[in-house]
Protein backbone atom coordinates (compact mmCIF):
# COMPACT_ATOMS: atom_id res chain seq x y z
CA UNK A 1 0.00 0.00 0.00
CA UNK A 2 2.90 2.22 0.80
CA UNK A 3 4.14 1.93 -2.77
CA UNK A 4 0.77 2.88 -4.17
CA UNK A 5 0.82 5.99 -2.06
CA UNK A 6 4.29 6.94 -3.27
CA UNK A 7 3.25 6.19 -6.79
CA UNK A 8 0.23 8.50 -6.69
CA UNK A 9 2.26 11.27 -5.15
CA UNK A 10 4.94 10.91 -7.79
CA UNK A 11 2.32 10.95 -10.49
CA UNK A 12 0.92 14.19 -9.12
CA UNK A 13 4.41 15.71 -9.11
CA UNK A 14 4.98 14.69 -12.72
CA UNK A 15 1.59 16.03 -13.81
CA UNK A 16 2.52 19.32 -12.17
CA UNK A 17 5.80 19.42 -14.06
CA UNK A 18 4.09 18.91 -17.38
CA UNK A 19 1.65 21.76 -16.75
CA UNK A 20 4.41 24.07 -15.67
CA UNK A 21 6.64 23.36 -18.65
CA UNK A 22 3.79 24.05 -21.04
CA UNK A 23 2.73 23.41 -24.60
CA UNK A 24 6.14 23.41 -26.32
CA UNK A 25 7.09 20.34 -24.33
CA UNK A 26 3.75 18.62 -24.65
CA UNK A 27 4.62 16.33 -27.55
CA UNK A 28 7.62 14.85 -25.75
CA UNK A 29 5.85 14.76 -22.42
CA UNK A 30 3.14 12.65 -23.98
CA UNK A 31 5.60 9.80 -24.41
CA UNK A 32 5.15 8.00 -21.12
CA UNK A 33 7.21 5.10 -19.82
CA UNK A 34 4.31 2.74 -20.32
CA UNK A 35 3.95 3.87 -23.93
CA UNK A 36 7.61 3.09 -24.58
CA UNK A 37 7.16 -0.30 -22.93
CA UNK A 38 4.09 -0.97 -25.09
CA UNK A 39 6.22 -0.40 -28.20
CA UNK A 40 8.87 -2.74 -26.80
CA UNK A 41 6.30 -5.43 -26.04
CA UNK A 42 4.80 -5.12 -29.50
CA UNK A 43 8.18 -5.38 -31.18
CA UNK A 44 9.46 -8.28 -29.09
CA UNK A 45 6.15 -10.14 -28.87
CA UNK A 46 5.48 -13.08 -26.61
CA UNK A 47 3.69 -13.31 -23.29
CA UNK A 48 4.54 -10.89 -20.51
CA UNK A 49 3.26 -12.65 -17.40
CA UNK A 50 2.99 -10.40 -14.33
CA UNK A 51 5.05 -12.87 -12.28
CA UNK A 52 7.88 -13.09 -14.84
CA UNK A 53 11.16 -11.21 -14.33
CA UNK A 54 10.39 -8.58 -16.97
CA UNK A 55 8.34 -5.61 -15.86
CA UNK A 56 8.30 -2.29 -14.02
CA UNK A 57 10.40 -2.44 -10.86
CA UNK A 58 10.37 1.13 -9.60
CA UNK A 59 8.90 4.51 -10.40
CA UNK A 60 5.61 5.50 -11.97
CA UNK A 61 4.90 4.01 -15.43
CA UNK A 62 2.88 7.12 -16.38
CA UNK A 63 5.99 9.30 -16.04
CA UNK A 64 6.78 11.36 -19.13
CA UNK A 65 10.01 10.05 -20.64
CA UNK A 66 12.82 12.52 -21.27
CA UNK A 67 15.38 9.92 -22.28
CA UNK A 68 16.12 6.21 -22.22
CA UNK A 69 19.02 4.33 -20.74
CA UNK A 70 19.90 0.66 -21.03
CA UNK A 71 22.19 -1.18 -18.66
CA UNK A 72 23.17 -4.69 -17.64
CA UNK A 73 22.37 -3.89 -14.02
CA UNK A 74 20.70 -0.81 -12.57
CA UNK A 75 23.15 -0.11 -9.78
CA UNK A 76 22.88 3.17 -7.92
CA UNK A 77 25.92 4.46 -9.85
CA UNK A 78 24.16 3.62 -13.12
CA UNK A 79 20.98 5.36 -11.93
CA UNK A 80 22.98 8.43 -10.88
CA UNK A 81 24.48 8.57 -14.37
CA UNK A 82 21.03 8.14 -15.95
CA UNK A 83 19.58 10.96 -13.84
CA UNK A 84 22.53 13.17 -14.75
CA UNK A 85 21.98 12.43 -18.44
CA UNK A 86 18.24 13.10 -18.21
CA UNK A 87 17.45 9.49 -19.08
CA UNK A 88 14.54 8.79 -16.77
CA UNK A 89 13.42 5.42 -18.14
CA UNK A 90 16.05 2.81 -17.34
CA UNK A 91 15.93 -0.66 -18.88
CA UNK A 92 17.95 -3.15 -16.93
CA UNK A 93 18.88 -6.74 -17.75
CA UNK A 94 19.55 -7.81 -14.15
CA UNK A 95 17.57 -6.96 -11.00
CA UNK A 96 17.60 -3.53 -9.40
CA UNK A 97 16.85 -4.61 -5.84
CA UNK A 98 19.44 -7.26 -5.05
CA UNK A 99 17.62 -10.50 -5.86
CA UNK A 100 15.32 -12.30 -8.26
CA UNK A 101 12.42 -10.98 -6.17
CA UNK A 102 13.64 -7.53 -7.30
CA UNK A 103 11.88 -5.69 -4.50
CA UNK A 104 11.27 -6.06 -0.80
CA UNK A 105 11.89 -9.50 0.59
CA UNK A 106 9.49 -12.26 -0.40
CA UNK A 107 9.46 -15.99 -0.96
CA UNK A 108 9.96 -16.77 -4.62
CA UNK A 109 8.01 -19.84 -5.70
CA UNK A 110 9.50 -22.55 -7.83
CA UNK A 111 13.10 -21.69 -7.09
CA UNK A 112 15.24 -24.78 -6.72
CA UNK A 113 17.71 -25.14 -3.90
CA UNK A 114 17.67 -22.62 -1.19
CA UNK A 115 14.36 -21.78 0.43
CA UNK A 116 13.44 -18.72 2.39
CA UNK A 117 12.70 -15.21 1.30
CA UNK A 118 14.65 -13.55 -1.49
CA UNK A 119 16.02 -10.05 -1.38
CA UNK A 120 16.08 -7.40 1.30
CA UNK A 121 13.54 -6.42 3.96
CA UNK A 122 11.51 -3.33 3.06
CA UNK A 123 13.23 -1.34 5.82
CA UNK A 124 16.75 -2.08 4.54
CA UNK A 125 18.64 1.25 4.40
CA UNK A 126 20.28 0.62 1.02
CA UNK A 127 16.99 -0.47 -0.51
CA UNK A 128 15.23 2.58 0.92
CA UNK A 129 17.93 4.99 -0.24
CA UNK A 130 17.80 3.55 -3.75
CA UNK A 131 14.00 3.85 -3.88
CA UNK A 132 14.31 7.39 -2.59
CA UNK A 133 16.84 8.30 -5.26
CA UNK A 134 14.59 6.85 -7.94
CA UNK A 135 11.58 8.76 -6.56
CA UNK A 136 13.37 12.06 -6.14
CA UNK A 137 14.70 11.92 -9.69
CA UNK A 138 11.44 10.69 -11.23
CA UNK A 139 13.16 7.64 -12.65
CA UNK A 140 11.30 4.60 -13.89
CA UNK A 141 13.07 1.26 -13.91
CA UNK A 142 11.93 -1.62 -16.10
CA UNK A 143 13.58 -5.01 -16.20
CA UNK A 144 14.05 -6.35 -19.71
CA UNK A 145 15.70 -9.72 -19.65
CA UNK A 146 13.76 -12.78 -20.84
CA UNK A 147 12.25 -11.12 -23.87
CA UNK A 148 15.45 -9.38 -24.88
CA UNK A 149 17.59 -12.48 -24.71
CA UNK A 150 14.94 -14.58 -26.48
CA UNK A 151 15.14 -12.32 -29.53
CA UNK A 152 16.41 -14.32 -32.49
CA UNK A 153 19.21 -11.84 -33.19
CA UNK A 154 20.81 -12.89 -29.87
CA UNK A 155 22.24 -9.45 -29.15
CA UNK A 156 23.72 -10.53 -25.82
CA UNK A 157 26.06 -12.72 -27.87
CA UNK A 158 26.68 -10.41 -30.82
CA UNK A 159 27.23 -7.47 -28.48
CA UNK A 160 29.91 -9.35 -26.58
CA UNK A 161 31.54 -10.44 -29.84
CA UNK A 162 31.46 -6.85 -31.07
CA UNK A 163 33.12 -5.56 -27.90
CA UNK A 164 35.85 -8.14 -28.35
CA UNK A 165 36.32 -7.13 -32.00
CA UNK A 166 35.33 -10.61 -33.17
CA UNK A 167 32.15 -9.95 -35.15
CA UNK A 168 33.78 -10.81 -38.47
CA UNK A 169 35.16 -14.08 -37.12
CA UNK A 170 31.80 -15.71 -36.49
CA UNK A 171 31.92 -19.25 -37.90
CA UNK A 172 28.21 -19.62 -38.65
CA UNK A 173 25.27 -17.29 -38.47
CA UNK A 174 23.12 -18.03 -35.42
CA UNK A 175 25.93 -19.80 -33.64
CA UNK A 176 28.30 -19.12 -30.78
CA UNK A 177 31.66 -20.10 -32.29
CA UNK A 178 34.28 -17.57 -33.45
CA UNK A 179 37.53 -18.37 -35.27
CA UNK A 180 39.88 -15.68 -34.07
CA UNK A 181 43.43 -15.18 -35.35
CA UNK A 182 45.39 -17.98 -33.68
CA UNK A 183 47.24 -17.06 -30.54
CA UNK A 184 47.79 -18.39 -27.01
CA UNK A 185 45.22 -18.60 -24.22
CA UNK A 186 47.29 -16.05 -22.31
CA UNK A 187 47.23 -13.57 -25.19
CA UNK A 188 43.50 -14.09 -25.68
CA UNK A 189 42.87 -13.43 -22.01
CA UNK A 190 44.92 -10.23 -22.19
CA UNK A 191 42.86 -9.11 -25.16
CA UNK A 192 39.56 -9.92 -23.43
CA UNK A 193 40.65 -8.08 -20.30
CA UNK A 194 41.59 -4.99 -22.25
CA UNK A 195 38.59 -4.97 -24.62
CA UNK A 196 36.05 -5.46 -21.82
CA UNK A 197 37.98 -3.12 -19.51
CA UNK A 198 38.07 -5.72 -16.78
CA UNK A 199 39.72 -5.11 -13.44
CA UNK A 200 39.59 -8.19 -11.22
CA UNK A 201 36.65 -10.23 -12.45
CA UNK A 202 38.34 -12.43 -15.02
CA UNK A 203 39.42 -15.91 -14.02
CA UNK A 204 40.83 -18.53 -16.37
CA UNK A 205 41.19 -22.31 -16.17
CA UNK A 206 43.41 -24.47 -18.35
CA UNK A 207 46.73 -24.22 -20.15
CA UNK A 208 48.03 -20.66 -20.46
CA UNK A 209 50.14 -21.60 -23.46
CA UNK A 210 47.42 -23.52 -25.32
CA UNK A 211 46.84 -22.43 -28.91
CA UNK A 212 43.51 -20.69 -29.27
CA UNK A 213 41.75 -20.40 -32.58
CA UNK A 214 38.11 -21.37 -32.06
CA UNK A 215 36.32 -19.60 -29.22
CA UNK A 216 32.85 -20.32 -27.88
CA UNK A 217 31.13 -17.26 -26.45
CA UNK A 218 28.52 -17.58 -23.75
CA UNK A 219 27.41 -14.34 -22.06
CA UNK A 220 25.56 -14.79 -18.77
CA UNK A 221 25.45 -18.14 -17.02
CA UNK A 222 26.70 -21.28 -18.69
CA UNK A 223 25.26 -24.57 -17.39
CA UNK A 224 26.91 -27.98 -17.45
CA UNK A 225 24.39 -29.17 -20.04
CA UNK A 226 25.67 -26.56 -22.50
CA UNK A 227 29.31 -27.23 -21.73
CA UNK A 228 29.04 -31.02 -21.94
CA UNK A 229 27.22 -30.79 -25.23
CA UNK A 230 29.67 -28.51 -26.99
CA UNK A 231 33.01 -28.35 -25.20
CA UNK A 232 34.86 -30.41 -27.81
CA UNK A 233 34.15 -27.80 -30.48
CA UNK A 234 36.25 -25.01 -28.98
CA UNK A 235 39.79 -24.26 -27.88
CA UNK A 236 38.52 -21.76 -25.37
CA UNK A 237 35.13 -21.02 -23.82
CA UNK A 238 34.44 -17.46 -22.71
CA UNK A 239 31.44 -17.27 -20.38
CA UNK A 240 29.97 -14.84 -17.89
CA UNK A 241 29.73 -17.12 -14.91
CA UNK A 242 29.53 -20.82 -14.10
CA UNK A 243 29.28 -22.82 -10.90
CA UNK A 244 32.73 -23.67 -9.72
CA UNK A 245 31.94 -27.25 -8.64
CA UNK A 246 30.50 -27.84 -12.10
CA UNK A 247 32.13 -26.28 -15.16
CA UNK A 248 35.24 -24.93 -13.44
CA UNK A 249 35.98 -28.33 -11.95
CA UNK A 250 35.27 -29.96 -15.34
CA UNK A 251 37.65 -27.61 -17.17
CA UNK A 252 40.32 -28.12 -14.50
CA UNK A 253 40.02 -31.91 -14.91
CA UNK A 254 40.25 -31.59 -18.70
CA UNK A 255 43.43 -29.59 -18.20
CA UNK A 256 44.80 -32.34 -15.93
CA UNK A 257 44.56 -34.86 -18.76
CA UNK A 258 45.92 -32.43 -21.35
CA UNK A 259 42.61 -31.71 -23.04
CA UNK A 260 40.88 -28.56 -24.22
CA UNK A 261 39.05 -26.27 -23.94
CA UNK A 262 40.21 -23.70 -21.48
CA UNK A 263 37.51 -21.77 -19.67
CA UNK A 264 37.47 -18.03 -19.08
CA UNK A 265 34.80 -16.41 -16.93
CA UNK A 266 34.67 -12.64 -17.13
CA UNK A 267 31.84 -12.12 -14.63
CA UNK A 268 28.12 -12.28 -15.27
CA UNK A 269 27.47 -8.56 -15.52
CA UNK A 270 30.67 -7.81 -17.44
CA UNK A 271 29.59 -10.40 -20.02
CA UNK A 272 26.12 -8.85 -20.27
CA UNK A 273 27.23 -5.23 -20.46
CA UNK A 274 27.87 -5.23 -24.25
CA UNK A 275 24.52 -6.81 -25.13
CA UNK A 276 22.72 -3.92 -23.50
CA UNK A 277 24.67 -1.51 -25.69
CA UNK A 278 23.06 -3.26 -28.66
CA UNK A 279 19.74 -2.90 -26.84
CA UNK A 280 20.23 0.87 -26.79
CA UNK A 281 20.79 0.97 -30.57
CA UNK A 282 17.66 -1.09 -31.10
CA UNK A 283 15.63 1.18 -28.79
CA UNK A 284 16.66 4.22 -30.78
CA UNK A 285 14.54 2.89 -33.62
CA UNK A 286 11.53 2.37 -31.32
CA UNK A 287 11.54 5.69 -29.48
CA UNK A 288 12.92 8.29 -31.87
CA UNK A 289 11.39 11.17 -29.88
CA UNK A 290 13.88 10.92 -27.04
CA UNK A 291 17.62 10.26 -26.77
CA UNK A 292 18.79 6.77 -25.81
CA UNK A 293 22.08 5.83 -24.21
CA UNK A 294 23.81 2.78 -22.84
CA UNK A 295 25.32 2.99 -19.37
CA UNK A 296 28.06 0.47 -18.69
CA UNK A 297 28.19 -1.15 -15.26
CA UNK A 298 31.84 -2.05 -15.65
CA UNK A 299 33.67 -4.77 -13.76
CA UNK A 300 32.53 -4.79 -10.11
CA UNK A 301 35.61 -6.69 -8.95
CA UNK A 302 39.15 -5.77 -8.04
CA UNK A 303 42.01 -7.85 -6.80
CA UNK A 304 43.96 -7.52 -3.59
CA UNK A 305 47.40 -5.96 -3.80
Amino acid at each position, binding site marked *: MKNNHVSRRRFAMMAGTVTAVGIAFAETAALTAEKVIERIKTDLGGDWPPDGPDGFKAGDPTTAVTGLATTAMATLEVLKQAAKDGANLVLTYE*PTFFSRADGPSRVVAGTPGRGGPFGVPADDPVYQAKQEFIGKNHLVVFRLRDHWQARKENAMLTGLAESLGWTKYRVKEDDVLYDIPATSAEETVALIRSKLRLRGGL*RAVGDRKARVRRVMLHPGVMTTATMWQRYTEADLIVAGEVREWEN*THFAADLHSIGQKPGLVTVG*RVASEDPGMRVCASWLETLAKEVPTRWISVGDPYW*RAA
Partner: protein
Amino acid sequence: MTGREVVELIKKNIGIPWNENSYRDTFKLGNPDTQVKGIGTTVMVTFGMLKRAHEAGLNMVISHEDTFWNDRDETKDLAAIPLYKLKTEYVLKNDMVIWRIHDHMHAMRPDFTVVGSLRSVGVKGGEDAVMRPRIYTIPETTFGDFASQVKRLTGSRAFRCVGDPGAKISKILLGPGYATPRMTAEADVVIGGEQQEADGAFDDVEYVLDAVSLGKAKGLIMLGHVVSEQPGMEDLAKWMRTFIKDVLIEFVPAEEPFWT
Protein backbone atom coordinates in the same frame (compact mmCIF):
# COMPACT_ATOMS: atom_id res chain seq x y z
CA MET B 1 39.64 -51.70 7.63
CA THR B 2 37.26 -51.25 4.69
CA GLY B 3 35.85 -48.03 3.29
CA ARG B 4 32.50 -48.94 4.73
CA GLU B 5 34.04 -49.41 8.19
CA VAL B 6 35.70 -45.99 7.97
CA VAL B 7 32.32 -44.44 7.25
CA GLU B 8 30.71 -46.35 10.14
CA LEU B 9 33.34 -44.92 12.50
CA ILE B 10 32.66 -41.41 11.21
CA LYS B 11 28.93 -41.89 11.79
CA LYS B 12 29.60 -43.17 15.31
CA ASN B 13 31.83 -40.22 16.23
CA ILE B 14 30.19 -37.30 14.47
CA GLY B 15 27.94 -36.40 17.38
CA ILE B 16 24.80 -35.70 15.34
CA PRO B 17 22.12 -38.08 14.04
CA TRP B 18 23.04 -39.49 10.63
CA ASN B 19 20.68 -38.51 7.83
CA GLU B 20 20.41 -41.57 5.61
CA ASN B 21 18.44 -39.49 3.08
CA SER B 22 21.38 -37.27 2.17
CA TYR B 23 22.10 -37.87 -1.51
CA ARG B 24 25.40 -36.11 -1.10
CA ASP B 25 27.07 -38.02 1.71
CA THR B 26 27.41 -41.39 -0.01
CA PHE B 27 29.97 -43.54 -1.82
CA LYS B 28 30.52 -42.15 -5.30
CA LEU B 29 32.88 -44.57 -6.97
CA GLY B 30 34.89 -47.69 -6.19
CA ASN B 31 34.19 -50.62 -3.92
CA PRO B 32 33.16 -49.62 -0.37
CA ASP B 33 34.45 -52.97 0.87
CA THR B 34 37.93 -52.37 -0.45
CA GLN B 35 40.75 -52.55 2.11
CA VAL B 36 41.79 -49.00 2.99
CA LYS B 37 45.56 -48.41 2.87
CA GLY B 38 45.30 -44.73 3.57
CA ILE B 39 42.72 -41.92 3.54
CA GLY B 40 43.02 -38.58 1.75
CA THR B 41 40.63 -35.78 2.67
CA THR B 42 40.03 -33.01 0.16
CA VAL B 43 37.58 -30.30 -0.77
CA MET B 44 37.16 -31.42 -4.38
CA VAL B 45 38.03 -34.72 -6.08
CA THR B 46 39.94 -33.20 -8.95
CA PHE B 47 41.86 -35.50 -11.25
CA GLY B 48 45.07 -33.94 -9.98
CA MET B 49 44.08 -34.61 -6.37
CA LEU B 50 43.25 -38.25 -7.20
CA LYS B 51 46.70 -38.76 -8.68
CA ARG B 52 48.42 -37.20 -5.69
CA ALA B 53 46.40 -39.35 -3.31
CA HIS B 54 47.24 -42.50 -5.27
CA GLU B 55 50.93 -41.62 -5.41
CA ALA B 56 50.90 -41.12 -1.63
CA GLY B 57 49.38 -44.58 -1.15
CA LEU B 58 45.97 -43.25 -0.10
CA ASN B 59 43.24 -45.29 -1.74
CA MET B 60 40.23 -43.84 0.08
CA VAL B 61 39.28 -40.28 -0.81
CA ILE B 62 36.91 -38.34 1.41
CA SER B 63 35.74 -35.25 -0.43
CA HIS B 64 33.55 -32.35 0.56
CA GLU B 65 32.41 -31.69 -2.99
CA ASP B 66 31.35 -33.68 -6.03
CA THR B 67 33.36 -36.03 -8.22
CA PHE B 68 31.51 -35.78 -11.53
CA TRP B 69 31.00 -32.02 -11.90
CA ASN B 70 27.43 -31.95 -10.62
CA ASP B 71 26.04 -31.89 -7.11
CA ARG B 72 24.13 -35.16 -7.37
CA ASP B 73 27.03 -36.87 -9.11
CA GLU B 74 24.62 -38.01 -11.79
CA THR B 75 26.50 -39.86 -14.50
CA LYS B 76 23.80 -40.59 -17.06
CA ASP B 77 24.79 -37.66 -19.30
CA LEU B 78 28.49 -38.42 -19.06
CA ALA B 79 28.79 -41.75 -20.85
CA ALA B 80 30.08 -40.17 -24.05
CA ILE B 81 32.62 -37.94 -22.30
CA PRO B 82 36.16 -39.39 -22.42
CA LEU B 83 37.17 -37.52 -19.26
CA TYR B 84 34.45 -39.35 -17.32
CA LYS B 85 35.71 -42.69 -18.58
CA LEU B 86 39.34 -41.86 -17.77
CA LYS B 87 38.57 -40.62 -14.28
CA THR B 88 36.40 -43.64 -13.48
CA GLU B 89 38.97 -46.06 -14.85
CA TYR B 90 41.74 -44.40 -12.86
CA VAL B 91 39.82 -44.90 -9.62
CA LEU B 92 38.82 -48.49 -10.34
CA LYS B 93 42.18 -49.57 -11.73
CA ASN B 94 43.93 -48.31 -8.61
CA ASP B 95 41.44 -49.89 -6.24
CA MET B 96 40.40 -46.49 -4.91
CA VAL B 97 37.11 -45.59 -3.30
CA ILE B 98 35.50 -42.14 -3.09
CA TRP B 99 33.09 -41.08 -0.37
CA ARG B 100 31.62 -37.61 0.07
CA ILE B 101 30.96 -35.77 3.31
CA HIS B 102 29.15 -32.51 2.76
CA ASP B 103 25.80 -32.14 4.52
CA HIS B 104 27.00 -33.67 7.76
CA MET B 105 30.06 -31.44 7.89
CA HIS B 106 27.80 -28.41 7.72
CA ALA B 107 25.57 -29.86 10.45
CA MET B 108 28.51 -30.73 12.74
CA ARG B 109 29.50 -28.67 15.77
CA PRO B 110 31.79 -27.07 14.97
CA ASP B 111 31.50 -26.90 11.17
CA PHE B 112 35.12 -27.47 10.14
CA THR B 113 34.63 -25.69 6.82
CA VAL B 114 33.73 -22.47 8.64
CA VAL B 115 36.39 -22.94 11.33
CA GLY B 116 39.07 -23.54 8.69
CA SER B 117 37.94 -20.71 6.46
CA LEU B 118 37.96 -18.17 9.30
CA ARG B 119 41.42 -19.32 10.40
CA SER B 120 42.74 -19.19 6.83
CA VAL B 121 41.85 -15.51 6.43
CA GLY B 122 43.27 -14.60 9.83
CA VAL B 123 40.01 -14.02 11.71
CA LYS B 124 40.35 -15.20 15.31
CA GLY B 125 37.74 -16.73 17.60
CA GLY B 126 36.07 -19.07 15.15
CA GLU B 127 37.15 -22.37 16.70
CA ASP B 128 33.56 -23.24 17.62
CA ALA B 129 31.94 -21.80 14.48
CA VAL B 130 28.87 -23.39 12.94
CA MET B 131 27.26 -22.96 9.53
CA ARG B 132 24.97 -20.15 10.66
CA PRO B 133 27.15 -17.07 10.18
CA ARG B 134 27.97 -14.70 12.99
CA ILE B 135 29.89 -11.45 13.18
CA TYR B 136 33.58 -11.54 14.10
CA THR B 137 35.26 -8.31 15.13
CA ILE B 138 38.84 -7.72 14.01
CA PRO B 139 41.06 -4.74 14.85
CA GLU B 140 39.98 -1.87 12.59
CA THR B 141 41.81 -1.78 9.28
CA THR B 142 41.07 -0.73 5.72
CA PHE B 143 39.28 -3.12 3.40
CA GLY B 144 42.25 -3.01 1.01
CA ASP B 145 44.70 -3.95 3.75
CA PHE B 146 42.42 -6.71 4.93
CA ALA B 147 42.20 -8.06 1.36
CA SER B 148 46.01 -8.03 1.14
CA GLN B 149 46.16 -10.00 4.38
CA VAL B 150 43.71 -12.55 2.94
CA LYS B 151 45.88 -12.86 -0.14
CA ARG B 152 49.04 -13.37 1.91
CA LEU B 153 47.48 -15.89 4.30
CA THR B 154 45.47 -17.98 1.82
CA GLY B 155 47.98 -17.85 -1.03
CA SER B 156 45.01 -17.50 -3.36
CA ARG B 157 45.78 -15.98 -6.74
CA ALA B 158 42.27 -15.38 -7.99
CA PHE B 159 39.91 -14.22 -5.26
CA ARG B 160 37.77 -11.20 -6.06
CA CYS B 161 36.84 -8.13 -4.04
CA VAL B 162 33.96 -5.65 -4.34
CA GLY B 163 33.83 -2.39 -2.43
CA ASP B 164 35.97 0.55 -1.41
CA PRO B 165 39.56 -0.48 -0.56
CA GLY B 166 39.87 2.60 1.63
CA ALA B 167 36.83 1.83 3.80
CA LYS B 168 37.47 1.31 7.51
CA ILE B 169 36.24 -2.14 8.48
CA SER B 170 36.17 -4.40 11.53
CA LYS B 171 33.01 -6.57 11.42
CA ILE B 172 33.36 -9.75 9.39
CA LEU B 173 30.65 -12.17 8.29
CA LEU B 174 31.89 -15.38 6.65
CA GLY B 175 30.20 -18.35 4.98
CA PRO B 176 32.31 -20.70 2.86
CA GLY B 177 31.45 -22.53 -0.35
CA TYR B 178 28.12 -21.57 -1.86
CA ALA B 179 26.89 -20.32 1.53
CA THR B 180 28.03 -16.73 1.02
CA PRO B 181 26.08 -14.75 3.65
CA ARG B 182 23.84 -11.80 2.93
CA MET B 183 25.35 -8.46 3.78
CA THR B 184 23.69 -7.08 6.89
CA ALA B 185 23.48 -3.64 8.47
CA GLU B 186 25.96 -4.66 11.15
CA ALA B 187 28.59 -6.33 8.94
CA ASP B 188 31.34 -4.40 7.15
CA VAL B 189 32.73 -7.27 5.10
CA VAL B 190 31.11 -10.44 3.81
CA ILE B 191 33.43 -13.28 2.88
CA GLY B 192 32.09 -16.14 0.79
CA GLY B 193 33.25 -18.87 -1.52
CA GLU B 194 31.08 -18.35 -4.55
CA GLN B 195 27.64 -16.99 -5.29
CA GLN B 196 25.49 -16.34 -8.31
CA GLU B 197 26.50 -12.80 -9.25
CA ALA B 198 22.97 -11.47 -9.85
CA ASP B 199 19.34 -12.59 -9.95
CA GLY B 200 19.76 -14.96 -7.01
CA ALA B 201 18.32 -15.15 -3.50
CA PHE B 202 20.48 -12.23 -2.46
CA ASP B 203 22.85 -10.36 -4.75
CA ASP B 204 25.72 -9.27 -2.54
CA VAL B 205 27.66 -7.77 -5.45
CA GLU B 206 24.99 -5.23 -6.37
CA TYR B 207 24.15 -4.56 -2.74
CA VAL B 208 27.76 -3.76 -1.87
CA LEU B 209 28.21 -1.59 -4.98
CA ASP B 210 25.13 0.42 -3.97
CA ALA B 211 26.09 0.61 -0.31
CA VAL B 212 29.49 1.99 -1.34
CA SER B 213 27.78 4.45 -3.66
CA LEU B 214 25.89 5.68 -0.58
CA GLY B 215 29.15 6.11 1.31
CA LYS B 216 28.74 3.08 3.55
CA ALA B 217 31.83 1.07 4.53
CA LYS B 218 30.99 -2.29 2.98
CA GLY B 219 33.07 -4.91 1.22
CA LEU B 220 32.70 -8.34 -0.32
CA ILE B 221 35.38 -10.99 -0.77
CA MET B 222 34.65 -13.98 -2.96
CA LEU B 223 37.39 -16.48 -2.15
CA GLY B 224 36.38 -19.14 -4.64
CA HIS B 225 34.85 -22.46 -3.66
CA VAL B 226 38.05 -24.47 -3.29
CA VAL B 227 39.98 -21.78 -1.44
CA SER B 228 37.13 -21.12 0.98
CA GLU B 229 36.29 -24.70 1.99
CA GLN B 230 39.68 -26.32 1.60
CA PRO B 231 41.18 -25.53 5.05
CA GLY B 232 38.33 -27.31 6.84
CA MET B 233 39.28 -30.59 5.20
CA GLU B 234 42.57 -30.51 7.08
CA ASP B 235 40.55 -30.15 10.30
CA LEU B 236 38.44 -33.11 9.22
CA ALA B 237 41.60 -35.21 8.78
CA LYS B 238 42.81 -34.22 12.25
CA TRP B 239 39.45 -35.06 13.76
CA MET B 240 39.37 -38.47 12.06
CA ARG B 241 42.82 -39.28 13.47
CA THR B 242 41.32 -39.10 16.97
CA PHE B 243 39.26 -42.22 16.34
CA ILE B 244 41.06 -43.96 13.45
CA LYS B 245 44.59 -44.68 14.61
CA ASP B 246 45.73 -47.60 12.49
CA VAL B 247 45.22 -46.08 9.03
CA LEU B 248 47.20 -43.19 7.56
CA ILE B 249 45.00 -40.09 7.17
CA GLU B 250 46.31 -37.16 5.14
CA PHE B 251 44.87 -33.87 3.92
CA VAL B 252 45.38 -33.73 0.15
CA PRO B 253 44.61 -30.23 -1.14
CA ALA B 254 42.82 -29.68 -4.41
CA GLU B 255 44.47 -27.04 -6.57
CA GLU B 256 42.96 -23.56 -6.90
CA PRO B 257 41.81 -23.92 -10.50
CA PHE B 258 42.27 -20.33 -11.67
CA TRP B 259 44.91 -18.16 -13.21
CA THR B 260 44.29 -14.53 -14.00
